[in-house]
C-alpha cells in the first residue's frame, strides 16, 4: 500500500463560455439565424458534440496543467482568488465534472462536501432528510442508523426531528445540514468553503469539528477564503493563480505570499482585471491609496488622514452615479463601508472619465492588511464591482495618542472614546 492519497498530474479543465454579442445585426440576419440555428444545433446534438445552447467559440482554461501529490493523512489548504480554479479542482476530484486533459488518481473512499444540505427536501422531516442527505453523500444506511443520535445531538434539533424542515429556522436548517455532512467518514475528504455559512457560534462549531476530522488522520483538502481557518487547520497549502499552482508549501509562507501579492504596489491598474462583475457601462480603470501628503502608498498609519482615489471611465454617458467602497480585513470581515449614498454625496455630470476621491480624516483600523472592494452604480444598477480593487497595510498607529493599539483579536475597528469615573459608595 503506497502512502499517496491523491495524485494529480497535468490536470486541465477548459470551459466554453458564450460568444461575445455582436453589436449590430439586421433584422434579416436575425430572422435567418433564428430559422437556421435550431437545425444546426439539432445536427450538433445528434453528433453528440453539444456543449450547450450557447455558441462555442470562446473558451477559458479554469485549470491549466496542475500537478501535486497528497500523502495519506495530510491536511492541505487550497487558496487563491475568485476564479483561480479552486472549486473546479474540487469538482474534478469529486468526479462531478471531467477534466479536459491530464488525470488524477485517488486512493481511498472519497467524501466531498461542496455545499451543506445538498438534496434536502423542504417537505420532509428532519429525520427523513438525515437519511436522504446521508445517502446522497454516500453513507450506507447502517452507517446512518449508527450515527443518527449523534447527528441529531450535534445539530441540536432533538425536539423538531419529526417536523418538516420547511418549518425550521435557517439556523436549525444549517446546523442539521452540517451535522449530517460532518459525520461523513471517508478516508479522503474534500471540503469547499462550507464554513462560510451561519452565525459566528455555528462557524466556530464547524471549525472545531473540522479540527477533529483533521486530527483523526484523514486526508483533507480544504478550500477556503478564510485565512485564519486555513492557518489553523492546514500545515501545507497550495496557492492557485489563474488555474495554475503558483505556490505549494508550508501554510504560513504561502498565505503570506498570497496576501502580499493580492496587489503589489500602491496603485492598481484595473483596466484588464478579469475579476469583476457588472454591466461595464461605467467602470473602474485604476485605484490608489494616498497618505496625508497625497503621495501614493500602500502603507498607512492609523489615526492619520488617508485618501482613496478611484479612476473611472464612463462609456454610456451616464450623468450621475453612486460609488461604494467596502474595506475588508485579513479575515475577510467587512470592517466598514464608505458609500456616496451614506454621506449624501452625489456625482453630477460624470463626463467620459474622472476621479473620485474618498477621504478618511482619522483612519480607525488596527495594524494589519486590508482589501478594498469598489462598486459603481448608475440608477441602482451595478455597473462595475471589483472585489480586490486595492490592498493596503496599516503598519503603525497614532489613533490613541500614546501610540497603543488594541490586539487584533479584540478589535476590527478603533473607536474614539472617553472614560469617566465616580464612586458610588454612599454608605
Amino acid at each position: 500500500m503506497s502512502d499517496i492519497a491523491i495524485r494529480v498530474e497535468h490536470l486541465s479543465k477548459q470551459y466554453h463560455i458564450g460568444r461575445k454579442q455582436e453589436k449590430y445585426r439586421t433584422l434579416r440576419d436575425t430572422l435567418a439565424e433564428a430559422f437556421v440555428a435550431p437545425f444546426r444545433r439539432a445536427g450538433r446534438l445528434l453528433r453528440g458534440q453539444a456543449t450547450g445552447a450557447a455558441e462555442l467559440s470562446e473558451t477559458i482554461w479554469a485549470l491549466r496543467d496542475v500537478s501535486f501529490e497528497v500523502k495519506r493523512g495530510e491536511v492541505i489548504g487550497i487558496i487563491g482568488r475568485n476564479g483561480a480554479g479552486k472549486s473546479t479542482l474540487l469538482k474534478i476530484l469529486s468526479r462531478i465534472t471531467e477534466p479536459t486533459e491530464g488525470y488524477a488518481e485517488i486512493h481511498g473512499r472519497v467524501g466531498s462536501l461542496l455545499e451543506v444540505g445538498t438534496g434536502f427536501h423542504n417537505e420532509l422531516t428532519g429525520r427523513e432528510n438525515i437519511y436522504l442527505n446521508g445517502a446522497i453523500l454516500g453513507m450506507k444506511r447502517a452507517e446512518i442508523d449508527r450515527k443518527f443520535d449523534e447527528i441529531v445531538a450535534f445539530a441540536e434539533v432533538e425536539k423538531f426531528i419529526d417536523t418538516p424542515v420547511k418549518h425550521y429556522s435557517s439556523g436549525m436548517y444549517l446546523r442539521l445540514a452540517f451535522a449530517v455532512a460532518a459525520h461523513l467518514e471517508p478516508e479522503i475528504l474534500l471540503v469547499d468553503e462550507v464554513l462560510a455559512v451561519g452565525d459566528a457560534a455555528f462557524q466556530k462549531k464547524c471549525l472545531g469539528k473540522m479540527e477533529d476530522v483533521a486530527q483523526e488522520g484523514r486526508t483533507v483538502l480544504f478550500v477556503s477564503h478564510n485565512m485564519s481557518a486555513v492557518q489553523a487547520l492546514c500545515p501545507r497549502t497550495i496557492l492557485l493563480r489563474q488555474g495554475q499552482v503558483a505556490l505549494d508549501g508550508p501554510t504560513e509562507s504561502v498565505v503570506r505570499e498570497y496576501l502580499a501579492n493580492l496587489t503589489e504596489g500602491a496603485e492598481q491598474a484595473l483596466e484588464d482585471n478579469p475579476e469583476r462583475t457588472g454591466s461595464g457601462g461605467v467602470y473602474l480603470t485604476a485605484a490608489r491609496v494616498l497618505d496625508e501628503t497625497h503621495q501614493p502608498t500602500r502603507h498607512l498609519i492609523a489615526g492619520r488622514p488617508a485618501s482613496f482615489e478611484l479612476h473611472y471611465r464612463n462609456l454610456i454617458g451616464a450623468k450621475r452615479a453612486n460609488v461604494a467602497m467596502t474595506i475588508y480585513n485579513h479575515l475577510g470581515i467587512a470592517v466598514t463601508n464608505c458609500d456616496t449614498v451614506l454621506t449624501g454625496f452625489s456625482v453630477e455630470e460624470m463626463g467620459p472619465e474622472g476621479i473620485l476621491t474618498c477621504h478618511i480624516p482619522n483612519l480607525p483600523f488596527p495594524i494589519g492588511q486590508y482589501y478594498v472592494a469598489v462598486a459603481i452604480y448608475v440608477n441602482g444598477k451595478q455597473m462595475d464591482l471589483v472585489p480586490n480593487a486595492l490592498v493596503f497595510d496599516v503598519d503603525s498607529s497614532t489613533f490613541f495618542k500614546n501610540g497603543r493599539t488594541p490586539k487584533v483579536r479584540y478589535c476590527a475597528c478603533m473607536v474614539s472614546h472617553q472614560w469617566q469615573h465616580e464612586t458610588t459608595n454612599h454608605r
Partner: protein
Amino acid sequence: MLKSLGRRTAADMLMPSRADEVPVIRIEPSRGWVSLKLRELWEYRELLYFLVWRDVKVRYKQTVLGAAWAIIQPFFTMVVFSLFFGKLAKMPSDGIPYPIFSYAALVPWSFFSRGLNQASNSLVGSARLIKKVYFPRLAIPIATVLSGVVDFLLAFLVLLGMMLAYGIVPTINVLWLPFFLLLALITSLGVSLWLSAMNVQFRDVRYTVPFITQFWLFATPIAYPSSLIENPWLRTLYGINPMTGVVEGFRWALLGANTAPGPIVAVSSLVALALLVSGAYYFRRMERTFADVV
C-alpha cells in the same frame, strides 16, 4: 418508514467489510462511447431507493386530494373515452365492456406517460444535486420512473374493483402481468433516458414532451382495439410502438381478450429493449457535460 430502515441493518452488517482494500479511482477525460458502469449503479442502490422513496413521499404533499390523483387521471379519461368513443362512436372493443376495455389500457398508459413526463425533466430538476455531489446520474431518471409504480398500483386497485363489478374473472394469463408492467417500465425509461439527457442541453425538450405523449396516446390502441387492423402482418408491425404490446398484453392477461398478442408483444419487447440500451449509452455519453451545462 424508518422502522423498516432499521430492520435491514442486521443484513447490512453481515456483508463482508471491504474496508482494508483501498479502492483506486482514476479521473481522466473520457472519449467516445463509455461503459454503462452498471456495477457502480448497483453499488448505489441505496441512494436509488432513497430517491424513489423521496419522490413517493413528496409527490402529493400539499394537495387536497393526495394520492387520489393517481386514480383520478386514468379514471376520468376512461369516463370521457367511454362517452365519446364507446357510446357515441360505437367503437368495437373485442367483446369486452368498453369502460373496462379502455381503463385496462389507460392504467399502464398513465404509468408510462407520467414516467416519461417527469423523468425527462428529472435531470434539470436535480441540477443542484448534479453540480454538488457525485453519484451515477442514471439513478435520477430510473428513480423517477420507478416511483410511478406506486401510482400504478393505486390505479390498478380500481381496475380490480371494476373487474369485480363487471364479473370478469382473469385467466391463468394474469401471471404474465408483471412482464407487461416491466415492458411499460422499460419503454418509459428508454425514452426518458434520451429525452432527459437532451433536455440538459436543449430545454426545447420540455415543450415537446406534451406533444409526444399526446400523439403517442392516439398511436396506441387505447381508445380502440388493435384488431381494427385486419392484416396479421400489419398488426404485428403495430408492435413497433412498444406501448401497443403493453396495452394488448394487459387486456389479454386480465380481461382474457381473445386477441393472442404474442407476435405484437415480441416486436414490442425488442423495440423497447433497443430504446433502453441506446438511451442508456446516449445518456452516459452526454453525462460528462451535465454538471457544466445544466
